């Protein structure tokens, strides 16, 4: 039987119009425009702000100039730094800590579970400016809580933001984003029938054995989803800027912060656009991979 439609095609299109116009103007148009601008020498000020020249692939050649590629403050350095940042803070930090927390929270007393969840989620939902300032105070050399605790334990104090800025933003981003993985794995574990675990209990399995042999294999799909999503988000995150401003001397200049500096500090829009295009290409690969995985999973469910 053919379903009769509740809305005619014309009314449907009218309903679509407001959202369609907004998305077309502020998502789709920028996508194509930035590609065009990346082939020009457009700047924020001066003659080329109004009448930019077409420069072909010059911006891209500049980004991939082998003599300066790995120098601090250049594109290649930021790209490698961002890759390390994603691997350490998203894949190892957030995902690993998230799955451990989700597993632990299943078997701890309810009040402890509620408080821990509130702390982890609090780190995730508070405005990024507030979080940035909280960490600035936390890491302060003279009075910060981190050094206060170290002193109390008779350990040496650290000048974190100057001494090891990269590790600071790795820990910072792990702290900030673990909540998502924790919640995703939490609901994934909750969807496993309890009888599986009860059977393992009868057989005398330890918690780690249950995790390795029952929990992990059954939530494999969720793990893939989680890894791709947090990789995409971490790759684009700008929040570390609020803590380190990309410094000292470019040592925490992730791609997002590099783009900001090139376009809005150095006013080189053409070059900034070229970086934007590269980032979009990388995002596109992640997103297509994600859609492919999601489709394959939904086919598996149907089969």
């Amino acid at each position, binding site marked *: 039987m053919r379903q009769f*439609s*509740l*809305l*005619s*095609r014309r*009314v*449907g*299109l009218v*309903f*679509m119009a*407001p*959202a369609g116009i*907004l*998305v077309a103007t*502020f*998502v*789709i*148009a920028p*996508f194509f425009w930035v590609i065009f601008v990346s082939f020009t020498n457009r700047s924020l000020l001066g003659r080329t702000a109004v009448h930019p020249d077409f420069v072909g692939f010059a911006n891209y050649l500049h980004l991939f100039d082998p003599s300066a590629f790995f120098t601090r403050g250049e594109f290649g350095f930021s790209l490698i730094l961002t890759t390390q940042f994603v691997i350490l803070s998203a894949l190892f930090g957030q995902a690993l800590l998230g799955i451990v927390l989700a597993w*632990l929270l299943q078997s701890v*007393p309810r009040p*402890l*579970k509620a408080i821990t*969840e509130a*702390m*982890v*989620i*609090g780190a995730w*939902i508070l405005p*990024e400016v*507030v979080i940035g*300032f*909280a960490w*600035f*105070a936390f890491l*302060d050399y*003279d*009075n910060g*809580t*981190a050094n206060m*605790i170290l002193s109390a334990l008779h350990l040496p104090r650290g000048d974190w933001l100057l001494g090891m800025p990269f590790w600071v933003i790795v820990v910072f981003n792990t*702290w900030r984003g673990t909540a998502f993985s924790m919640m995703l794995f*939490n*609901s994934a574990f909750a969807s496993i029938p309890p009888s599986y675990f009860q059977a393992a209990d009868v057989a005398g399995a*330890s918690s780690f054995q249950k995790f390795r042999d029952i929990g992990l294999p059954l939530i494999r799909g969720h793990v893939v989803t989680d890894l791709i999503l947090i990789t995409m988000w971490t790759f*684009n995150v*700008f929040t570390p800027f609020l803590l380190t401003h990309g410094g000292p001397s470019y040592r925490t200049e*992730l791609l997002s912060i590099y*783009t*900001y500096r090139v*376009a*809005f500090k150095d006013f080189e*829009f053409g070059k900034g*656009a070229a970086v934007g295009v590269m*980032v*979009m290409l990388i*995002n*596109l690969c992640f997103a*297509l991979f994600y*859609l492919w995985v999601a489709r394959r999973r939904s086919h598996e469910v149907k089969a």
Partner: protein
Amino acid sequence: MNRQFRLFASRMGFSVLTALIGAGFALPLIWFLFAPFNARAELGIAIPDPFTLSNFAEVFRNGFALRGLLNSLVESVGGVILVGLGATLASYALSRSPIPGKRAITYVLLLFSSVVSGSAAMVPIFLIVTALRLIDTQLAVVLVFAGGLMPTAMFILRDFIDGIPRSYEESAMVAGASPLQAFFDVALPVIRPGIVVIVVWAFVNIWGSFLIPFILLRSSEKMPASVAIYSFYSEAGTPVVTLLAAYSLLYSLPVIALYLFVSWKFGFRFFGGIKA
């Protein structure tokens, strides 16, 4: 007996480990429990003596700071209204009308919105807004957020509407309702919980955002709280800690309130998948 003991020990171990991790997450925030109420707060943790609200009084005397909160409210509410209206209408149409290729539309939009995000988007968005002559207007901030959040909102809402039986509206139309009446009087009340989720999600996203208003706005009287907060720095660049702490707390309150509201209403798990 031995096994009982081992079970008990592992339970204890789990609780201790969880408590330690929880404490680790709490540490950077403890400072915020005390500093706003301490008239001599510094970057270290100190129990306020005396406990005072003078920092808040100081913030409320600062017109620029208050205008920041008001601007945040204007931008968030504006964006939320556009996202709520646009996404509800569009996802209803995607679910109920015979538009060709409607599955593909949602996925393509979602793909675009995840590719044109964050660091990749700041240059093109700045250029579009400049071309539209909307630089340094709050309207620009509202529109940019509405466009950027729309695809995800549509995706969530369409799933929600697809889960509602068509027979609800069909029986209303058999009883003589027009399609528009069926939408407003029958479908809309049923969709409302889904709209609430979208609204809360969009509000939290816009309220907390820093980068977009930071690059699109110039005049200080238009800045939202996330940018205005940087006025609490002295000329030498050192933060005025007392005011910053009190202002941060005020600025965080709506987010905390919404978090409590959502976890009370839906359980927070629901919120999990949808922060962009």
